[in-house]
């Protein structure tokens, strides 16, 4: 499933989820349900949140985070990591935490790997061509 379809399905089944962005292992965007600039800001912020959370856990000699929820009065931010990928989402206040984590993980796993760039045929060099002609 492509990222847009997976995210559309997620927001369909989980109305508490508002803004979503899925990020590949190399930091590139896999998909989002918001404009590009907002998606980049959400992805950067979510990754920074996860890195800061890792640092907090490391200070206590604990392993890094696999998922987190930051709950505020205006809503929650969720970050879920799975297989190198990350999904960042915002929700309405007081979401059903377990369900949101489950839906985010399902969405992330449903996203296919992006198609690799087709390999260009190698161009023969002029020297090689001259050799062949001789």
């Amino acid at each position, binding site marked *: 499933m492509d990222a847009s379809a997976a995210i559309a399905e997620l927001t369909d089944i989980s109305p508490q989820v508002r803004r979503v962005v899925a990020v590949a292992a190399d930091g590139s965007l896999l998909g989002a349900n918001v404009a590009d600039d907002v998606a980049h800001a*959400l992805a950067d912020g979510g990754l920074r949140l996860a890195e*800061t959370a890792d640092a907090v*856990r490391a200070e206590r000699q604990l392993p*890094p985070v696999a998922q987190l*929820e*930051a*709950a*505020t009065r205006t809503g929650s931010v969720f970050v879920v990591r799975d297989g190198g990928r990350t999904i960042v989402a915002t929700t309405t206040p*007081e979401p059903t935490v377990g369900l949101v984590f489950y839906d985010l993980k399902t969405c992330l796993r449903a996203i296919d790997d992006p198609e690799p760039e087709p390999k260009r045929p190698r161009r023969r060099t002029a020297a090689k061509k001259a050799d062949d002609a001789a």
Partner: protein
Amino acid sequence: MPRSSRVVTGMLLAAGSVAGSLLVRRRAARRRERVDLYAEDGSMLSLADGTPEAERLLGLARELLV
């Protein structure tokens, strides 16, 4: 109104007010800001609002919720 009815009414009112205050307290507790960090092994570290670590993380989260 007979005395027994007044006693029952009073007890019902008291029970209702206790239940109501418990509900309000529980909702208020759920509204508290916090950060829950889960590891791969299922362990969880909950940082309550007011701790320096929670403030750092909640600050980042608030930026994303604007």
